[in-house]
């Protein structure tokens, strides 16, 4: 098992997440795709830490997890309140803030 496979896996996960964010309308699904992208990056960080034999990347991954956890709390709260007021969880329906 060479580290390259881990990088390939992480690139695939990131691409799936990015495409999900761009094509899905359901806010929850978009949110999950964002998490997928974050964790893909985490995998990359850990892999590179392993390759270089240093702990920096692993520490960075912890940071990302913490930020992601905080983001989930805020993001889900926003999605909840939008759903309560508009009876919809589609991101395309929440388009009032524009030109």
């Amino acid at each position, binding site marked *: 098992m060479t580290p390259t496979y881990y990088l390939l896996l992480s690139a695939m996960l990131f691409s799936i997440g*990015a495409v999900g*964010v*761009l*094509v899905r*309308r359901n806010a929850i699904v*978009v949110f999950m795709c964002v998490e997928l992208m974050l964790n893909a990056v985490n995998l990359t960080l850990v892999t590179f830490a392993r390759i270089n034999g240093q702990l920096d990347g692993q520490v960075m991954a912890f940071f990302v997890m913490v930020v992601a956890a905080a983001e989930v709390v805020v993001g889900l709260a926003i999605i909840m309140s939008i759903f309560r007021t508009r009876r919809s969880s589609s*991101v*395309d329906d*929440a*388009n*009032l*803030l*524009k*030109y």
Partner: protein
Amino acid sequence: MSTPLLAATPQVEAATGVTGLAWLLIVLPAFGALVLFLAGRRSDAWGHLLGCLTVVASFVVGLTIFLHTLGLAPEQRTSELNLYRWIPANALQVDFGLRIDPLSLTFVLLITGVGSLIHIYSIGYMTHDPGRRRFFAQLNLFITAMLILVIGNNFVMLYLGWEGVGLASYLLIGWYQDRPSAATAAKKAFLMNRVGDVGLALAIFLLWTDLGTVQYTQVFARIGELSPGTVLAVCVLLLLGACGKSGQFPLQSWLPDAMEGPTPVSALIHAATMVTAGVYLVARCNPIYDVSANGRLIVTIIGTITLLLGAIIGCAYDDIKKVLAYSTVSQIGYMMLAVGLGPAGYALGIAHLLTHGFFKAGLFLGAGSVMHGMNDDVNMRHFGGLARHMPITFVTFGLGYLALIGFPFLSGYYSKDAIIEAAAAQPGWRGLVMGGLAMLAAGLTAFYMTRLVIMTFFGEKRWQKLKAPDGHDYHPHESPASMTIPMIILAFGSVFAGFLLTQSHTLAGWLAPTLGELAEQHGATLSESSVAVGTLVLSGLGVLIAYLLVGRQPTPVTRPEPVAWPVQAARRDLYANAINEALIARPGTWLARALVYVDNKGVDGIVNGMAALLGGTSGRMRRLQTGFVRSYALSMLGGTVLIIAALLAVRFGTQ
């Protein structure tokens, strides 16, 4: 270089005793002006009395200082009074300082003396004007500024007074604000004065840059340090200022138009005092002009041109005040010619200035009295035979007239003929040309003044068949005592001033501490007696021709047309206005129009174009903000991909 004159410069002492009260001279009329301006309508009832009182009080102060100074030895007659530091700006330190010397005292007496008489005259003249109190406020303002002009001890004070009299003159010329012609005349006077003021300001700047001081004593003491070119430049720039203020060629055309103001204003400002400020300037700067023979030559040339030009145009006008105005232009030309002669002429110029102050003020007041009795008409063709209806006006006017044309033993005979003789006594062509032209102008003066007197006071009573411009019949009557008494006093001055001032060089001796001793000239082509006789003969000839042309024939009520081209030219001010219009005004208008075009199309075009470009672009760009989160995400992704691609291209592409 005329070192003997510099050696004669007296020491300057600090003013003490009576002389220390000189500040009252300025403060009194300034107080009057301030009260009258600020108190408004409340002071309508007594405003004119306060106005007169302050000026008379100022005259009394001036007279006291004069008598005190007269008692001192000649070398102690110059003193200075520093009131406070006016402009303390680093290297530029200007004091609000007064210089009390024979020259400034002479002017103080002229200004406050004639000023008092004209203030008193104005009480009667302006009786029916609802704005009489404001009129006195402005007259007081004028007196204040004029006193600052003559009594300051540095060029900045002079400039302060110079601009102050310009302001007062502007306000008073435009007194009848509802007349467009008066408003235009006021503007014209202000603008043409501005041209001269720029010259004066530049001269002061030049002195300041080269000598680092603006105080008379220091400038005059160190004038020898300057290069001849700089001195000539200062001379010419000062002369430009003098030309603007004194209505000298080529800036003379505002003065006749200034007659739109009330007649006391014409008498005080545009005949006796303010317009002589240019002569004062040249005489005051005598140490500067002494060093530059070319500068003096230019002054004499300007004076000669002006005295001839004023006399020629004066022959053609029918407006009584405009004839007198051109006469003033011409007489100030004589004064300029005199002060341009240098040490031989300074005192003569000042002597003529004083006598002219008397008789020209008297003539203007007489003209005002005639207008007062003739429904404010100024056209002499409507007058005639007024001598019997206005006996006092006629006699005082007649004495002023005789003084002006140089009738033997009256004022003008002593002061004007002395100038002509001094001009003719110059060596070489200058004596011949300038003396000859001055004599010719004396003949013309006799002609136009005789014409004026005959048309106004003698002959057929043409007004009996006419209606005044306001639709009433003419009822000529003598003016009230407040108007006739000043005229009588001025008439005494017209008769005796010349003899008293010039007899055994009284005035020249009095002015010697400031202007230097009156120098004799040698090497003249024309002998003194032939000049004196020639002047008398030419003047007599002028009177005779005027009698034959005007007195012996009936005067038409309307202007004869067409007339020969010299008359046509004189009626049009020798095309001075046309030349100004063609050379200055019209190119100026074109330039302004071109600049407006460049501004509108060019500068505004660039600015507005930039704004339109930005506005239009952003109006289109904002459409990108659709409100769809996913499109933002796509653009973020696209941007990131682009940046990474660029980084990779730089990282691996260059290898």
